[in-house]
Structure formats: structure tokens, C-alpha cells
């Protein structure tokens, strides 16, 4: 496979293990961000600084920037790899997922090692989720068509890690025949309306399993992994490769790109770009880069919206019991948004599709949701800090009371001594 030459990559981290000026090789650990982060190119760390990813981001994340060596020096030999595992057991597979920085690559970004560890022994059915919003043309469809053996291998490794009884591939109708030729595992198309890739809907569509909102799918015996995640597991175990590449649909092409590739050079960004679907995906900042969860980059169609005419079509298509029109009307009012359960929005974009006024409902709802959640977080943080201050004040008051009592006792003792002396 031809490697796309990048001049530099930017990797978001919560903690960096390298310093500016360090020389790193491809595949090496450079930091952590819930899961380990690895250098996706060989080169020199040129900066560790905040960088914007999304337009509606409250604060930019710290990124490690690596300036790539010349392309001819980027050989396979210079790449750092973990030792391949032969016949690994459950613990080895999970440990390897952690070491290779595997995360849920369908959008969740949750560390796969943690997920497998929590699921171990609880799950009877492992579901491989190939239902994409861009059905048939997305990154997972490309993977299933061009490298199904890797996909299936990753799924089987995950099955082994959690000792699940069955594997079920949930695939759109366009992919079922390709997969059935390759595997004896069940391949099924869930019979639910969009967004069929959403975990709970997927399980409902496949197994008629109703999972309460408070419950996790693993409590009901299901674990859902995304296709790209399976490929990453297989890479990590069989060839020791850390997560430094991923398949990304860019416009209508599917490319294998190093994590951290700036999006600016990939696609003509005369309009703005989105991560995911053209209408409802997260709006990308011009500085944004491919992340581990970036499965698609789409051009944002020009916003030609007109005012809401309150037709209520969005209510009919909303898969959750939400009122999208009310949510955008009250988008600046946190109390109303809370009462309208804005946090239940799946950001599936069906309301954007149906709106006769071409309103970008998902954008507006997402902004409101973000603001409400961050307000809730800061309120909780404030409450926690208030509780700490109160506890400290109490401790101080208690201590001063104790000291007061001790002082008084000492004074009393002194007075007693003195009176005894005078009397004698």
C-alpha cells in the first residue's frame, strides 16, 4: 500500500511522555489520551501546544506535533513494532490492546482494553457493527470488501479475549453476501430504521433486546465493537502494530491515513468540513487532524436554511422521544433544554435530512447539549469544591475549639498550681 507522505502530524494527548526536540520513531509511545498515543511518523517533536479540532469545542486539546523525516527514511525497518503474539490468551490480547492504544474507532474512542476487561465473562454475543450512516461507501464497508480476513481475525481475537460464545456481524444488506462467503459466523442486517448503527437500536434490531438507558449492553450479555476496531486488534496482536493509521472516507474515496494528518491538505476546503456525515457530523476547525475516531471527512453543503415553519416532521423522524423543533427554539435556555432531555439526542441527523427549511438542527442541538453538559459539569465541580471548603472550615473550627479547650485546661492547671503555691 502506498503510504501518504505527510510533513507533520498532530496527536492530541492529555499527557505527553516526550519533550520538544526529542526524536521519535514511527510506532513509538509518545503520550496518553485515555489510551496510549503512538507516533504515527518518524521525526522530531517540534511542539507540544493547544490546537483546535472542532468548531464547537470549549477548550482546545494539547497536541504533540511531530515533524516527519524525509519520506525515503520512513522505511518499514525504522518502524517500532511490538512483538507479534502467537496463540495469545485472553489477558495477553487485552494487554496488547492497551499497549497498542486501541480504542473504539467508530466514534466512541473508549479504550478497547477497558471495554474487553469489563466484558470478560459477562458477554455471550460479540456484535461487530458495520452499520454506517454512509452505508456501503464508508470506511467499514471498504474494510469488509478489501480486507475481510483481517476484520474477521480481529473479531475472533476479541471473542477469545472475552470468551463470548457467538460472533454476529451486523452489516448493511449490500455487504452481507461478501461477508457470508468469508465467514461461518452469523451475518445479519438489523431490521430497524436509522440510525441503525446506534448500539441500543442495533441490539434491538438484531435480537429484539431492549436495553434500558441506565444499563450497559454488557449487562445484557452483548458487546458491540466497530469494524475498524477489529482491524486494529488484529494488527496489534498479529503484527505488533500500534494504532498509527486508520481508514478514512474522504469525500467519496477511502484512504488509509496516518493518525494526526491535518485535514486541510486532504480535501478542497472551500466550504467547511465535517467529521462524519455531511449534515450532522461534528464541524471541523481548519486546524483539525485525523483522529483515531475520524471515520469520514465530508464537505459541508452550503447552509441555505430558512426559518422554522414548525411542521413537526423532525418529531416524526426522531428515533428518541424528543422534540427537535423545541430543542432548537430553546437552545439558549439551559433549564428548558434540560427539561426537554436534550442529553438524549443521538446526533443521528435524521431531522436535518427531513427538515423542509433545511435547518441544521443537529448542529444547534449539539451546541445546546454541550453547553448544558459543561454547565452541569462546572456546577458539580463547584459543588465539590464548596463541599471541600466547608469541610476544611469545619476542620479548622474543630481544631481551634480543641486548641481553645486545651489552652483553657492549661490555664486552669496553672491557676491551680499558683493557688496551691500561694496557700502553702
Amino acid at each position, binding site marked *: 500500500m502506498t503510504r501518504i507522505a505527510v510533513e507533520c502530524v498532530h496527536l492530541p494527548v492529555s499527557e505527553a511522555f516526550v519533550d520538544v526536540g526529542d526524536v521519535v520513531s514511527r510506532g513509538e509511545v509518545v503520550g496518553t489520551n485515555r489510551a496510549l498515543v503512538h507516533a504515527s511518523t518518524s521525526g522530531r517533536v517540534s511542539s507540544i501546544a493547544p490546537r483546535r479540532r472542532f468548531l464547537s469545542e470549549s477548550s482546545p486539546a494539547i497536541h504533540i506535533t511531530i515533524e516527519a523525516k524525509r519520506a525515503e527514511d520512513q522505511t518499514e525497518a525504522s518502524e517500532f513494532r511490538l512483538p507479534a503474539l502467537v496463540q495469545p490468551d485472553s489477558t495477553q490480547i487485552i494487554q496488547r490492546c492497551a499497549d497498542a492504544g486501541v480504542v473504539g474507532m467508530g466514534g466512541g474512542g473508549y479504550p478497547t482494553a477497558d471495554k474487553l476487561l469489563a466484558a470478560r465473562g459477562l458477554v455471550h454475543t460479540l456484535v461487530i457493527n458495520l452499520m454506517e450512516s454512509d452505508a456501503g461507501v464508508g470506511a467499514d464497508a471498504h474494510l469488509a470488501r478489501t480486507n475481510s480476513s483481517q476484520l474477521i481475525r480481529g473479531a475472533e481475537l476479541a471473542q477469545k479475549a472475552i470468551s463470548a460464545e457467538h460472533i454476529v456481524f451486523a452489516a448493511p444488506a449490500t455487504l452481507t453476501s461478501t461477508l457470508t462467503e468469508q465467514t461461518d459466523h452469523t451475518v445479519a442486517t438489523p431490521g430497524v430504521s436509522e440510525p441503525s448503527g446506534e448500539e*441500543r*437500536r442495533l441490539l*434491538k434490531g438484531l435480537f429484539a433486546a431492549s436495553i*434500558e*438507558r441506565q444499563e450497559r449492553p454488557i449487562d445484557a450479555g452483548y458487546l458491540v465493537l466497530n469494524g475498524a476496531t477489529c482491524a486494529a486488534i488484529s494488527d496489534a496482536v498479529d503484527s505488533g502494530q500500534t494504532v498509527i493509521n486508520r481508514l478514512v472516507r474522504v469525500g467519496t474515496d477511502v484512504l488509509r491515513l496516518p493518525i494526526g494528518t491535518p485535514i486541510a491538505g486532504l480535501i478542497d476546503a472551500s466550504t467547511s468540513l465535517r467529521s462524519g456525515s455531511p449534515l450532522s457530523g461534528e464541524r471541523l476547525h481548519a486546524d483539525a487532524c485525523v483522529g483515531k475516531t475520524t471515520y469520514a471527512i465530508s464537505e459541508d453543503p452550503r447552509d*441555505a436554511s*430558512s*426559518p*422554522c*415553519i*414548525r*411542521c*413537526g*416532521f423532525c*418529531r*416524526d*423522524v426522531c*428515533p*428518541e*422521544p*424528543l*422534540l427537535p*423543533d*423545541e430543542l432548537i427554539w430553546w437552545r439558549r435556555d439551559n433549564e428548558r433544554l434540560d*427539561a*426537554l*432531555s436534550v442529553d*438524549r439526542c443521538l446526533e443521528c441527523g435524521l431531522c436535518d*435530512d*427531513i*427538515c*423542509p*427549511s433545511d435547518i441544521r438542527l443537529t448542529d444547534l442541538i449539539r451546541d445546546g447539549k454541550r453547553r448544558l453538559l459543561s454547565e452541569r459539569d462546572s456546577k458539580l465541580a463547584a459543588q465539590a469544591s464548596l463541599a471541600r471548603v466547608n469541610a476544611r472550615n469545619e476542620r479548622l473550627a474543630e481544631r481551634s475549639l480543641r486548641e481553645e479547650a486545651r489552652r483553657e485546661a492549661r490555664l486552669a492547671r496553672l491557676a491551680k498550681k499558683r493557688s496551691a503555691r500561694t496557700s502553702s
Partner: protein
Amino acid sequence: MRRQRLGIQWQVCLALAPGGLILTWLFGTGVIVNLLVAALSCLMTEAACLTLAGRGQQIRARLSDGSAMLTAMLIALALPPGCGIGVIVVACALALGLGKHAYGGIGQNLFNPAMVGYAAVLISFPAALATWPPVASEFANGVDGLSGATILSSMTNEHGLTLSELAAGDYGVGQFGGLGVEWAALAFAASGLVLALRRTLAWRVPAGMLLALTIAGFVGFDGGSSNSLGSPMIHLFSGGTMLAAFFVATDPVTHPSSARGQWLFGLLVGLLTYLIRSYAAYPDGIAFAVLLANCATPWLNRTLARSRVGGAADA
């Protein structure tokens, strides 16, 4: 369900065409004149209002969304052919100027713009609006000397006559509704039904309205005496019942957005229509019924809006 190619307002306009053609057949070219004058004045009013509001750059988008054209078509079909160009121009100017743009333009208005315009000229020019031209003789069932009376005006004005006497005389009674216009009503109902099935309009509104009118019609019908308030069939297939049920009351901006709200709104329009037809001075009361029910929309929205959230998840 994907976004439909043609805007919903244009689809509604298109669906008005069959009924409009039948009216043209009945009443002659007056209907076409009405349409042309109304279209021209509505588009010009829309453009003028946008310019005044400093939204000149939106003129093209707003004129091409079909909403002004729909208002124009509804006014043109509601007004009697030959009522006079002035009346139409006034109706259109008031509909969009007062009924829509005074509230802030599309999506912001409380009342149905077409009915604001229609009600304004109904009160201002009662004579012009009471005079419907005679229907073409093919429909007259052998009755000649057509006076232009309509079934509803006859029921309001000719209190001494029983229903069968009205039917036998020259009082605008047709085979199952208003003479001739019953066929247009049927056409409006058919194309309205298609829109409802395509989910272009909220089907609960016409369902509620027609249900209320039918029930009220049954309750009030005494078999056709001189005091009779008209049979359910007469109420359904006369005046503007079908036009209003499928095309006027279904204006999404001015009806409630929740399912229960739409039912209540439809029932309210139907009931008010019946009451005004039966007990008020105007032969037909649909315009007032719609406007009065519009007043209830914000309240229905507020009271019923949050009913979907907080309940058990259905997904």
C-alpha cells in the same frame, strides 16, 4: 423518509390545481383572473415587505419557497370570481403584510395569512363577497334562472323553507353538497388525501376538523325541516369545508406541532365552523373558525409540547 425534492409549499400549490380547474369549469375564466391577480399581488407584497424589513437579500429565496404563492392561491380560490381586482389586491396585501410580515415573516405568524386577508375583505366588502356567479348550466340539473345563491347562504337566509324545498328550488343545492362546488370539494378532498398520505401535511388536522363537523352535523340535523341546520353531507361538501380542512387549517406555522395538539386544533376548527354557520350572521364561518383556533395554537403548544419527553423510552 427522505427530504422531498419539491418544497412542501409548492407541493401543496400543485395539489390545489385539480379543484381549481373544476372551479374554472364551473364559474368560467373569473377563477383564472382571481389566480393571476392574487399571485401578482402576493409576490409583490412579499417582496415589498422583505425590502421594508431590510431583508432584501432574501427576496429570491422567499419568493421561490412557494409560501407566498400558496397564500395567493388560497385567497384566489376563496374569493368569488368576479369580485373585483381591488378586493383581491386588498386581501393579498393584508394577508401577507398584516398576517405574516407584521409578525416577523415566515414561521413567526400567529394567524393563517390567507384567512387574515380573506376575513378582512369579508368584513369590509360583504356585498362583493356574497355574490357568487351562477354555475355553468351543465350542473344546474334542469333548474334555470340561476341566481347565484349558495347552499349555505340559502340555509342562512331562507328560514321558511325546508331542506327538500330548497333542493327543489333554485337555492344552490346540488346532489350531495353545494350545487356544482360539491365536485370541486371532492377534488380538493382527493388531492388533500394524497398530500396527507405522503405526509406532506399533518393528517390529524383535517381528520379532526371533518370529524367534528360530521358529528355536529348529525347532532344538529333533524331530517330537513325549515329549522334544520343542514345534513352532515351538506356541511362537508359545501362552502370551503374541504379546501379549508386540507389546505388552510394545515398551514404548519399556525397549527400546533404535537399530535394531540393537532387533533384538538382540528376538532376546534370543525366545531367553530359548525357553530358559526348555524348560529351566526355569516353563511360560512371557516375563516373565522380557523383564525379563532389559531389563537389556541400557542397555548396548545405550550401545554402539550413536553408530553413526549419524560415518558418511557420507545426506542
